[in-house]
C-alpha cells in the first residue's frame, strides 16, 4: 500500500508519504486534540531534522491537518491516517512517536484502534467500526474529511461545483424545481418542504430580498449544526448562495449562536476565502449574480431559533416573535421577503444540485426523503453525531450505531426533538423515524437532538427539566406561554417533591392543551410536548410519585430514603458534618447512621460522601 504513495527524495531514496488528520470538533478539542496536532508537527519536524536518507524514511510529506467533527465524540481525540485507512481512538500525546513509527512501517498500532465490543476484534478504519457502519453520511460527508480552514481542500472535494452548475447551467426556477423534486424538508424541526418555501420567496413582490441561515441551535443536547458549521463551513455558504440565486437575493445573514466561538471563527475565515476566490461578492463566477453574506452572532436566547424572533434579533432588537401570517417569505427582515432555512437544510442543497434530486430522494421513506443528522447523547455508549437515512428504526440508532446502554442497564426511552419534542418509549423502539411517524408518537423531529434514557432516569424529572427550560426561555410576550409554562412547572416541581395532588395529571393535560392551542409562536405551542408525551407513555410513573409517594427510578430526593452502607462507610464524618438537620450520627472511624425521623431528604450526605457509602432508595 505504501508503494503507491512513496515519495522519491533528491538522493533517490523512497520514503513513504503519510498524512495525519486530527479531529478538531468541540469534543475532541476539549480532550486535547489541538495540543495533539502540535505534538505531531513537532515530532515530524524533529525526525525530519535528524533524518538521513539511509537511516529513516521520516522525511515524507507528513502533512498534519485538522478536520471537522467525525461524530464519534465518545472515542476522542480521533486521529486518521488516510493512506493506511486507519482511525485511532483516544490518542494521547505520548502515543505520537509510536503512531508515526508504525505508520512509516505501514502497520497499525493495535492498542489504539477501536475494538468491537462484540468480539474485541480491532477495527482498522471507519468502515469497520460499528458506529459508522449503519450510517449514511451525506450532509456530513465532508465533515471529518476536509480541513475546515482550507477552501482548496473543499474545492478539491468537489466544493462549489454545485454553485457553478446552478449559476451557469440552471435558471432560478430550475433550481427551485430541483429542490422541490428532491423532497427536501426543513431540517430545523418543522419539516416544511424547502422547495415550496423557496418558491414563495421567489414569487413574492419584486424588490430587495434576503436570505438568512438559522444557526441558532438552542436545543439543549443537540450539536449537529455546530458540527457542520465547524467542520464544513463552505457547504453552508455554498447552499446559501444557491438559495440566494434561486430567490433573487443579494444579501445574506448567517445567524450563529455566540456560544459557538469556534464555529464563528471558522465561518469568518471561510467567508474571507470565498470572497477572495470570487464565490461571493459581485459578479460571482463571471455571471451577473451578486451575493454577499454577513455573520450575525446571537446572544443566547432559545426563542431566537423561531424565525420571526430571529429576524427581530438580526435587526438588533429583543428576539420576540410576531404572529404569522404574514410569513417571512412575504414579510421578513426589514419587511422584505426573506428566505430562512436551517444550517443543515442549506448544507444539503449543494448535494442536491450537484448530484441531482433523484440521488437525494433515493433514500428515506415515502413522505420523508434523504438523510437526517442526530446528536446521539445521554445514556448510550457511543455518544456522537450520526447521519442516517430517514426511516431507520430507533433500535438501529441506539443499539447498532450507539452501541447500547452503558453498565448493562435497560433502555427506557429516547427523547427526540428537545424542548419541543417528546419521548419515545421502549415499546416503540422499532418504529421508523421520519417526520410523520414521530408526530404520531407525540414526538417531533426537532432539530435532531436524540437523548437516550435508561431505567435510572426519572421521567417526571425529565418532564420537569424541559418545562423549566421552556419557562425560562419564554420571551414573555404572550400569557399562555409566559404564565402557563410556569404553572405547569410548579405542578411538576411539586410532584417531584412528593407533594403531588390527585388531579395533578389531569391539570397538566388540560393546561398543556390550552398552551399548545393558544400560544403565539412555536416555542409556546410545543412547550407542553415533553410533558404530555411523558404522561402519555409513562403515566404510571407519575401516579407512583403522586399516589405512592415513590420514585421508581430512585431519582427524586424527596421520595427517597437515605441510609448508609455499613460495608463502605469509613467513618470519615463528612456526611454528618454536611447534614443540615443533624440526622446523621456516628463517631470518627465508626459506621454512621441516618435517623429517618430527622432526615429532610436534601441529599447533602450523598454529595458529601466520597466513599459511595450513602444509599438512596
Amino acid at each position, binding site marked *: 500500500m505504501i508503494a503507491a504513495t512513496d515519495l522519491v527524495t533528491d538522493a533517490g531514496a523512497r520514503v513513504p508519504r503519510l498524512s495525519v488528520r486530527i479531529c478538531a470538533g468541540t469534543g475532541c478539542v476539549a480532550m486535547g486534540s489541538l495540543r495533539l496536532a502540535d505534538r505531531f508537527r513537532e515530532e515530524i519536524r524533529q525526525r525530519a531534522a535528524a533524518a538521513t536518507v539511509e537511516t529513516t524514511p521520516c522525511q515524507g510529506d507528513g502533512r498534519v491537518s485538522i478536520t471537522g467533527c467525525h461524530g464519534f465524540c465518545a472515542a476522542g481525540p480521533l486521529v486518521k491516517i488516510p493512506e493506511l485507512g486507519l482511525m485511532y481512538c483516544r490518542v494521547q500525546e505520548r502515543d505520537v512517536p509510536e503512531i508515526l513509527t508504525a505508520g512509516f512501517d505501514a502497520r497499525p498500532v493495535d492498542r489504539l484502534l477501536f475494538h468491537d465490543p462484540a468480539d474485541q476484534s480491532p477495527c482498522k478504519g471507519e468502515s469497520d467500526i460499528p458506529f459508522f457502519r449503519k450510517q449514511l453520511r451525506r450532509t456530513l460527508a465532508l465533515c471529518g474529511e476536509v480541513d475546515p480552514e482550507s477552501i482548496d481542500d473543499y474545492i478539491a472535494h468537489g466544493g462549489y461545483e454545485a454553485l457553478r452548475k446552478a449559476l451557469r447551467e440552471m435558471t432560478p426556477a430550475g433550481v427551485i424545481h430541483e429542490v422541490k423534486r428532491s423532497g427536501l424538508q426543513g431540517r430545523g424541526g418543522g419539516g416544511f418542504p424547502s422547495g415550496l418555501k423557496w418558491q414563495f420567496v421567489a414569487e413574492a413582490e419584486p424588490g430587495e430580498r434576503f436570505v438568512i441561515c438559522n444557526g441558532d441551535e438552542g436545543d439543549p443536547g443537540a450539536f449537529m449544526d455546530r458540527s457542520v458549521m465547524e467542520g464544513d463551513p463552505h457547504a453552508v455558504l455554498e447552499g446559501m448562495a444557491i438559495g440566494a440565486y434561486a430567490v433573487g437575493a443579494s444579501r445574506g445573514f448567517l445567524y450563529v449562536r455566540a456560544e459557538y466561538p469556534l464555529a464563528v471563527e471558522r465561518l469568518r475565515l471561510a467567508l474571507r476565502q470565498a470572497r477572495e476566490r470570487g464565490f461571493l461578492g459581485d459578479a460571482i463566477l463571471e455571471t451577473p449574480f451578486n451575493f454577499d453574506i454577513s455573520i450575525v452572532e446571537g446572544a443566547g436566547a432559545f426563542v431566537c431559533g423561531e424565525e420571526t424572533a430571529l429576524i427581530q434579533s438580526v*435587526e438588533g432588537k429583543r*428576539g420576540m416573535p410576531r404572529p404569522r401570517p404574514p410569513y417571512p417569505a412575504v414579510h421578513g427582515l426589514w419587511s422584505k421577503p426573506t428566505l430562512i432555512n436551517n444550517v443543515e437544510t442549506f448544507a444539503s442543497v449543494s448535494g442536491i444540485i450537484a448530484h441531482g434530486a433523484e440521488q437525494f430522494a433515493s433514500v428515506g421513506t415515502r413522505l420523508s426523503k434523504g438523510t437526517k443528522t442526530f446528536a446521539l447523547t445521554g445514556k448510550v455508549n457511543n455518544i456522537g453525531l450520526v447521519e442516517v437515512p430517514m426511516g431507520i428504526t430507533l433500535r438501529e440508532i441506539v443499539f447498532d450505531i450507539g452501541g447500547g446502554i452503558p453498565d448493562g442497564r435497560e433502555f427506557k426511552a429516547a427523547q427526540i426533538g428537545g424542548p419541543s419534542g417528546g419521548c419515545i418509549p421502549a415499546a416503540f423502539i422499532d418504529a421508523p423515524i421520519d417526520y410523520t411517524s414521530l408526530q404520531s408518537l407525540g414526538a417531533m423531529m426537532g432539530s435532531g437532538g436524540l437523548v437516550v*434514557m435508561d431505567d435510572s432516569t426519572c421521567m417526571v424529572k425529565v418532564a420537569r*427539566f424541559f418545562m423549566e*427550560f421552556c419557562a425560562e426561555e419564554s420571551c414573555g410576550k404572550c400569557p399562555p406561554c409566559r404564565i402557563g409554562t410556569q404553572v405547569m412547572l410548579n405542578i411538576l416541581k411539586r410532584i417531584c417533591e412528593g407533594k403531588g395532588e390527585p388531579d395533578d395529571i389531569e391539570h397538566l393535560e388540560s393546561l398543556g392543551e390550552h398552551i399548545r392551542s393558544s400560544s403565539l409562536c412555536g416555542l409556546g405551542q410545543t412547550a407542553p410536548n415533553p410533558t404530555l408525551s411523558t404522561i402519555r407513555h409513562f403515566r404510571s410513573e407519575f401516579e407512583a410519585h403522586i399516589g405512592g409517594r415513590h420514585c421508581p427510578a430512585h431519582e427524586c430526593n424527596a421520595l427517597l430514603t437515605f441510609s448508609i452502607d455499613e460495608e463502605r462507610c469509613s467513618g470519615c464524618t463528612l456526611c454528618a458534618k454536611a447534614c443540615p438537620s443533624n440526622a446523621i450520627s456516628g463517631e470518627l472511624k465508626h459506621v454512621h447512621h441516618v435517623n429517618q425521623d430527622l432526615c429532610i431528604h436534601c441529599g*447533602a450526605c450523598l454529595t458529601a460522601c466520597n466513599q459511595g457509602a450513602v444509599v438512596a432508595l
Partner: protein
Amino acid sequence: MKASVTKPETGTAGDIPGYFGSASIYSRDEIPAEAFSAVDEYVAAHPGGHERLIPVLHCAQSVAGYLPFELQDHIADLIGLSPVQVYEVVSFYHFFSTTPKGQYQLKVCMGTACFVRHAEHLIDAIQTETGLVPGQLSEDRVFGLELVRCIGACGLAPAIMVNNEVHGNLDRNMLRRLIKRLRNKARAKAAADPGDRAAGKETVA
C-alpha cells in the same frame, strides 16, 4: 455595598441597585477605559443603524467582561438609542451580563445530556465547596457560578466550562479537586501580585 455584588442576577430592572439611582454599585474606574474606546472604534468602523446594537454589546462585553450601565449609556448615545432601548436588549439575552464575572467563571452545562448524567450533582458539589448559588460571585471574586444551556460538549457529559475551557466526564470528587486546584492557583497569583487584588476588592465599597 459589597453584599450586593453577590446578588443573584435575576429580577427586574427595578431591583438592580444603582440603575434608577444616581450611583452605580461599581465605581467608574473599575470599568476599563479600553472598553469605551473599543466601542467607539467599533461603531466608527461599522456604519449602519440600530442593527449594530448586539454586535456592539458583544464587543463591549468582550473587553469589559460585563456591561456596566455607564457603558450601556455610552453605547446608547453612540448609536442613537435611549438607554432603556439598550437595556431591554441586554436584559433579554442570557449572554449579556450586568454584573462582573469571577476570575474563574464556572459555567455548569444544563443541557439534556448533562442533565441525564446528573449535572445537578456538580452544582451541589460547587455549592458545598464554594457556598455559591447560581448567578453569584464569591466575595473575593475568584469564583462565579452560572448555569448555561448546552455547551455542545454532549460527548463529555456532564461537563462544565471554566472560562473558555471545557472540563468533561466529571463527578463530584473530580470537581472538588478541580476547584481546589483553581483556588490554589488564584491564591498563588494573588500572593505573587498582592497589591492588585486586595486593592481592587477595597475600592468596590
